[in-house]
């Protein structure tokens, strides 16, 4: 019986393989260097695709440069010829298109699906006098320049915009917020721990690492609703501020991707996020699932674009 079951499973796997062989194995295009967030996501998705038997072999190509613009240009230019290319990207594609750093937007590509999410988080050092987000806001209401906020990138980057938006939701002028830019997330963390700055604006996954090791406390997170695994972390919404922000990571294909291929990718990614192989990879990296097929993904992109545009206009990064 056991033997027969094993064979049945194998046969079923074989059928599954055959049905997915309509489309070749995916070639992942990564707009940044090895080891970055995009790189980890693409390689993790590729690994899980292969392990779960959805693909026999995934390949990867790192193409950094031009703030991610080079990879987009390459996808537009040669993605259709090969027809197997998926580019990983995240919120910066919206952000950099708005600020004009890249001459493209997601509209020049075919959004396929978003896969995972991270949220903005505000972190203070363990010995900070601030015990809650409300206390930070109370201080900012007296003097908006009194709390220095660190982030892992230049002004106008995601860390900055999320912080500005969060204080604005509490009625504080986002332009007066003192954002201190660092060269990378790690350096910003060092800045917070050295006592140089009072608060850190970062992603939830990094914030959780700092909180778990007892170095820092998370005051608030920008998730739309409390996070299942960490219900004790207050969201801005639960504190009564109308602000949410999702940093998605997802995949794009070349423009003019045939509908059949899009459907195939969607099915494949959907099967992937339900697989136990993906679950292992996801848990290992501390990611949160956010699977959105194309139409939902585009809606989210449009909403995010509108949201970011307002903040960027207010802060003067985009002309009205």
């Amino acid at each position, binding site marked *: 019986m056991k033997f027969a079951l094993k064979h049945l499973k194998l046969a079923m796997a074989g059928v599954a393989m055959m049905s997915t062989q309509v489309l070749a194995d995916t070639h992942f295009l990564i707009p940044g260097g090895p*080891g970055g967030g995009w790189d980890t996501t693409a390689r993790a998705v590729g690994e899980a695709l292969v392990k779960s038997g959805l693909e026999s072999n995934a390949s990867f190509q790192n193409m950094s440069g031009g*703030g991610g613009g080079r990879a987009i240009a390459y996808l537009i230019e040669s993605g259709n010829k090969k027809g197997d290319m998926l580019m990983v990207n995240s919120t910066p594609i919206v952000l950099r298109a708005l600020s004009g750093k890249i001459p493209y937007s997601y509209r020049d590509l075919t959004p396929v699906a978003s896969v995972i999410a991270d949220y903005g988080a505000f972190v203070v050092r363990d010995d900070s006098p601030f015990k809650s987000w409300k206390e930070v806001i109370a201080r900012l209401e007296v003097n908006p320049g009194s709390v220095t906020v660190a982030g892992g990138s230049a002004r106008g980057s995601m860390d900055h915009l999320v912080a500005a938006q969060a204080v604005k939701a509490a009625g504080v002028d986002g332009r007066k917020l*003192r954002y201190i830019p660092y*060269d990378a997330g790690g350096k910003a963390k060092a800045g917070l721990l*050295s006592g*140089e700055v009072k608060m850190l604006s970062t992603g939830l996954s990094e914030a959780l690492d700092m909180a778990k*090791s*007892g170095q820092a406390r998370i005051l608030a997170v920008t998730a739309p609703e409390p996070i299942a695994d960490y219900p004790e972390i207050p969201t801005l919404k639960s504190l009564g501020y109308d602000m949410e922000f999702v940093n998605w990571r997802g995949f794009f294909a070349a423009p003019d991707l045939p509908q059949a291929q899009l459907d195939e990718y969607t099915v494949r990614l959907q099967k992937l996020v339900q697989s136990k192989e993906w679950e292992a990879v996801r848990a290992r990296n501390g990611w949160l699932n956010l699977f959105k097929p194309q139409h939902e993904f585009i809606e989210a992109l449009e909403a995010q674009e509108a949201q970011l545009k307002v903040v960027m206009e207010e802060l003067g990064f985009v002309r009205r």
Partner: protein
Amino acid sequence: MLDGILVGLSTAFMWQNLLYVIVGCFVGTFIGMLPGLGPITAIALMIPITYNIGADSGMILMAGVYYGAIFGGSTSSILINAPGVAGTVASSFDGYPMAKQGHAGKALAIAAYASFTGGTIGALMLMIAAPLLAKVSLSFQSPDYVMLMFLGLTAIAAFSAKGQFLKAMMMTVFGLMLSTVGIDPSSGTERFTFGQADLLDGVSFLLVAMATFALSEALINVIRPEKANQGSNDDDTPVIGSTKLSGAEVKEMAPVVGRSSILGFIIGVLPGAGATIASFMAYATERNLAPKAIRERFGRGEIRGLAAPESANNAACTGSFVPLLTLGIPGSGTTAIMLGALIAYGIQPGPTLMQDNPTVFWSVIVSMYFGNIVLLILNLPLIPYFAKALTLPRSVLTVMILFFSLIGVYLVSFNTFDLFMMVGFALVAVVLRLLSFPMAPLLLGFILGDMIERNYRRAMMISDGSISFIWERPLTLGIFALAMLVLLIPLKEYFQQRKVAQ
């Protein structure tokens, strides 16, 4: 601590972990030797493999690749003037002239011994004082980095030959200017990109180093074959030289290596600096400390000028494990990948790592001793074979240098724009070198300029536009005073000499 070391010993000396150290060191040396290609790519590609072998073995393997690359990177710096990794750029300042003068064997041996000592002293300090040193990494704030980099800039004098101070200054300013290309680190606006998307991310340090050293050297060899042949290999003299060091040389270098290892380690501990800065700083410090007669030999094949950066970069590489393992703060791209791997193993980086996962912490440190021995054993016997490259006819060697430098830069970015930019820089460098402008100050200005700017602007923002940050903290003021001292002492000597002359 003793328990920890014992745990580390028993884990690191399991046969499969010994094997991973050897594999890591071998891969690292190889990757390091290829000009341009650094440990970051190798480690990133290894990550999927390391998930299957457990956290201890994975970290041991990746660490081996990291310090192995810094160890091996000096080979191409010395032999063909093309730095293998950014951290060994300074090793070519004196290493390459030594090779040219027919002492390639000795230069490679010095690099190997200095690397070994730097790595071992680093591992020792890591073992004794890692938790204590965590406080050091967090005691440095932006103003302190500004002053540290300022102290580094005072080394320009160290990179200028006699009577060429003005030229060295001009090259430093050129380097500072180059470092401003790309996205402004504070405001996020584009600077000097001329609408070129390829310039958005700035110019890579390795590209500039490769263009101004290896490429331009090869081109000059083509233009002026008669100059290149001096003391070189078209006659029948052996060019590799002996790998043996004399007792006097060992005695001379021992204090240099000791000081540079400690300096390098401390700079490596700081998350805002790293192996490259450490090697430059050690080079400059040793030049300033050397007696006058030896000081003038720096840049022309002085053994101290090779031993200093080689021990400092390996010690700094080891030092960068302090913020990584005790605080969860990556100081470089390579350690950032290793941090990601730690998290993926389900290990919580930060101050609790030492208590929660003592095996990971201690086995990595203990494996470093073994790794350094492996590297020494691996590298020393190979020296004569590597050095054989120099016995190739110049017409072949020059072409190979051109090929390896261009391929090296291309393999990092896969961008043809970088190749054109590199050739452009090399042509400019050829003209400047023919006018006897020194190239090292350009690199110094380039690497320090970016860090000074970021930290200075951050310090100004935090202090709300006041320069009071210079004297508000004793550490900042102390480094500032040291920098002024280094600047002013040569001036005093200069005026004394004038007085005597009068």
